C-alpha cells in the first residue's frame, strides 16, 4: 500500500511540475500578452496632438481568422401593398384606417398613432408613439419583459420577417424612456428588451439588433428589427490581421471620445472578434462585410474606468 501511495505521489508531482511547462509551451504563445502605445486620433485644423499617446493592453486572445470569407449580399424585397397591410393588421394588430406610402428606403403603413416601417433591405420598425404623458404606467419587470419579448419575436419570425440565417440572443432588459415634470417628479414610460444578432454564428456590429419596447401592462409599443435580408455572396480576403487592426484602432476613435482631461492612460482590450458590419436602417448597403469589433475599457489618470464597446476596424482592404 505504501508503495502504491509513493508511486501515486510521484506521478502527481510529475504532473504538477509539468503544468507550468505546458502553460509556457502551449497556452502562453496564443495569449499574446501585448502592450504597446498608439497615437491618439490626430485632431483636425492643425491642433498639435503629437505627444498624445495611449497604452493599449491586450487582455484577451486574438481570434483565429480565415484567409477569406463570404460577404453577405443584401437581398431587397419590394413589399406589395397587400403584403404590408397583412403584416400591419395580422402581426401588429393595426386596425384603425391605414395609409401606405413609399419611399426610396421602403414603405410606411399606418397613421399618426401607429407607424410601421418596412424597409426593402429587411429592417422592420413598428412604433406607437407615447400619447399619454399624465398617467404613470404599470411596467413589466425585466424578467417579464424577456418573456413578453420572446413570445413576440416568435410571432415576428412566424411571419417570415426574421431573415433565415439570423440567430437572435437576448442581451438584457432595462428602462427605455423616462419623463419628468415639476409637479409629479419622474417616472418610467417604457421598458425595453434587447437582442443581439448573429449570421451563421458570426456576430454583427452594434447597429444590428432587435428590440422590443413595452409600455403599460406589457403592451408592445415599439419593435425594431435592425437586420438585413442576406445571402452568401463572393468571398473576400481578410487582408487585415487582428493585430494590425488593433494597432490601427487609434484612427477609428473620434477625438471627442478622448477628452484632454483627465488624460486617457490605458485602453484595455477585453474582446476582439470578427463581425459583419450592419448599417443603421436608413443608410443603404449592398453587402455586409467583415470588420473587427473591440470591447474595451478606457482607464483615465484619475482612476475612472469607462466601457467602450462600439469600436470597429475594417478587416478587409476594400
Amino acid at each position, binding site marked *: 500500500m505504501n508503495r502504491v501511495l509513493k508511486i501515486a505521489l510521484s506521478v502527481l508531482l510529475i504532473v504538477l511540475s509539468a503544468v507550468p511547462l505546458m502553460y509556457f509551451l502551449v497556452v502562453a504563445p496564443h495569449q499574446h500578452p501585448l502592450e504597446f502605445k498608439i497615437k491618439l486620433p490626430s485632431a483636425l485644423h492643425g491642433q498639435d496632438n503629437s505627444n498624445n499617446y495611449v497604452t493599449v493592453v491586450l487582455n484577451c486572445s486574438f481570434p483565429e481568422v480565415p484567409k477569406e470569407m463570404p460577404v453577405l449580399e443584401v437581398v431587397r424585397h419590394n413589399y406589395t401593398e397587400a403584403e404590408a397591410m397583412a403584416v400591419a393588421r395580422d402581426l401588429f394588430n393595426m386596425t384603425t384606417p391605414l395609409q401606405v406610402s413609399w419611399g426610396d428606403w421602403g414603405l410606411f403603413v399606418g397613421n399618426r398613432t401607429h407607424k410601421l416601417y418596412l424597409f426593402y433591405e429587411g429592417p422592420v420598425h413598428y412604433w406607437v408613439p407615447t400619447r399619454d404623458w399624465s398617467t404613470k404606467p404599470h411596467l413589466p419587470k425585466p424578467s417579464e419583459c424577456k418573456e413578453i419579448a420572446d413570445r413576440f419575436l416568435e410571432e415576428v419570425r412566424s411571419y417570415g420577417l426574421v431573415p433565415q440565417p439570423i440567430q437572435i440572443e437576448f442581451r438584457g432588459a432595462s428602462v427605455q424612456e423616462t419623463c419628468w415634470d415639476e409637479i409629479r417628479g419622474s417616472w418610467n414610460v417604457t421598458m425595453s428588451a434587447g437582442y443581439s444578432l448573429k449570421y451563421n454564428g458570426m456576430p454583427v456590429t452594434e447597429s444590428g439588433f432587435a428590440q422590443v419596447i413595452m409600455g403599460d401592462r406589457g403592451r408592445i409599443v415599439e419593435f425594431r428589427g435592425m437586420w438585413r435580408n442576406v445571402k452568401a455572396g463572393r468571398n473576400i480576403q481578410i487582408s487585415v490581421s487582428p493585430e494590425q487592426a488593433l494597432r490601427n484602432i487609434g484612427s477609428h476613435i473620434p*477625438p471627442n471620445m478622448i477628452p484632454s482631461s483627465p488624460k486617457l492612460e490605458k485602453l484595455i482590450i477585453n474582446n476582439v472578434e470578427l463581425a459583419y458590419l450592419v448599417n443603421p436602417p436608413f443608410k443603404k448597403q449592398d453587402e455586409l462585410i467583415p470588420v473587427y469589433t473591440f470591447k474595451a475599457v478606457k482607464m483615465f489618470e484619475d482612476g475612472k474606468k469607462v466601457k467602450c464597446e462600439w469600436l470597429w476596424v475594417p478587416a478587409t482592404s476594400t
Partner: protein
Amino acid sequence: MFIITVQALALNSQLTVYAAGNDDNNHKEIGVEWVNDYSEPGWDNLQWSDDNAEGFYNVLVNKGFTGKFHYGNRLAWESDFEKASVGGNDDYYVDNVDFVYFSGHGNSSSFLFGRNKDGEYPGGDYHYQVHYTEADWGDKDLEWIFISACEVLEQYPTEWNPAFHSPKTLHGMTGFHTSLADTDDVGELGEVFAKFLTGDYGPAGSIYESWYSATTQVGLTGDGEVWAAIYAVKVWYHPPPPQPEFERYYWNEYLPSYGDGMYSDPPSPQPGLTITIKYDKWKVYPWW
C-alpha cells in the same frame, strides 16, 4: 372661470392657427450654427458638426423654409444666442427666426463655440459658450431650439427654465442627456430629423416623434449609455369641476404646414391654468 374655459376650448380647436405676440409674419424661418474647430479654446475638434447642421438646413430650405443664416466655425458666434442684457445679439439672430439648430460641443450647463465672442456686460463672461444664464429665448420670434451637443439637457429642466422667456414663449428644446461619439452617424442626424419632420419617412412627425425617431435610428453610439432628451412647455388647464381638464404638450407640435401645425404661444399663467416644463429622455444606445 368662463374665460378660462373659452380660452381652453379656443386653444384646443385652433391647432393650426399660429400667432405669437412678437412673432413676425414668416413662421418658417430657420437658422443653424455649427462648430468643428475648437483649436482656439484648445478643446477636441469635431468632424461631423457641419454635416449635421447643414443637413437640417438643406432639407428644410429645399422644402420652402426660409434660411436666414447658417454659420460655421469662426462665423458661429455665441453672442448670436445670448440676450442683450449680457451683451448678446439674439434679437438679430437666434430669436429672429422660428427654429434654430446647433451642433458642436456641449456640457451640462452650456453649449460651446470655437471663438470667444462674449459680451462685455455683467453676467456675460462665460467665454466660448452659451451658458444657461445667458439665454432668454422666445421674447421675439424663436419657437424651438435643437441642440445636437453632449449633455446640454443633462439636468431636469430646472437649469434651462430661465432660457424660456417669461411668460413662456419658447416652446421647447431638444438635445442630449449624455455624451455621444462624434461618428459619421452624427453627421446624418440633422438631415434625418428634418426628413422625419417633413414627411419623407411616412406622414410628418411631431417634434417629439421626429427627434425620438432620428436619434434612435441614425446609429448613435458612445461610451456608456447615450440618452436623447426633449423638454417643452406643458399647459395644464384645470378649471373648477365640472368643467373638463386638459393638458397640452408643446412637443406634440408639428412644423408649420405639416401635420396639425403649431400651437399658439402658451398663455400667461392665471388661476385654473398651470404652465410648466415637461422633460422626457430615452435611451439611444445601447439597445439592451
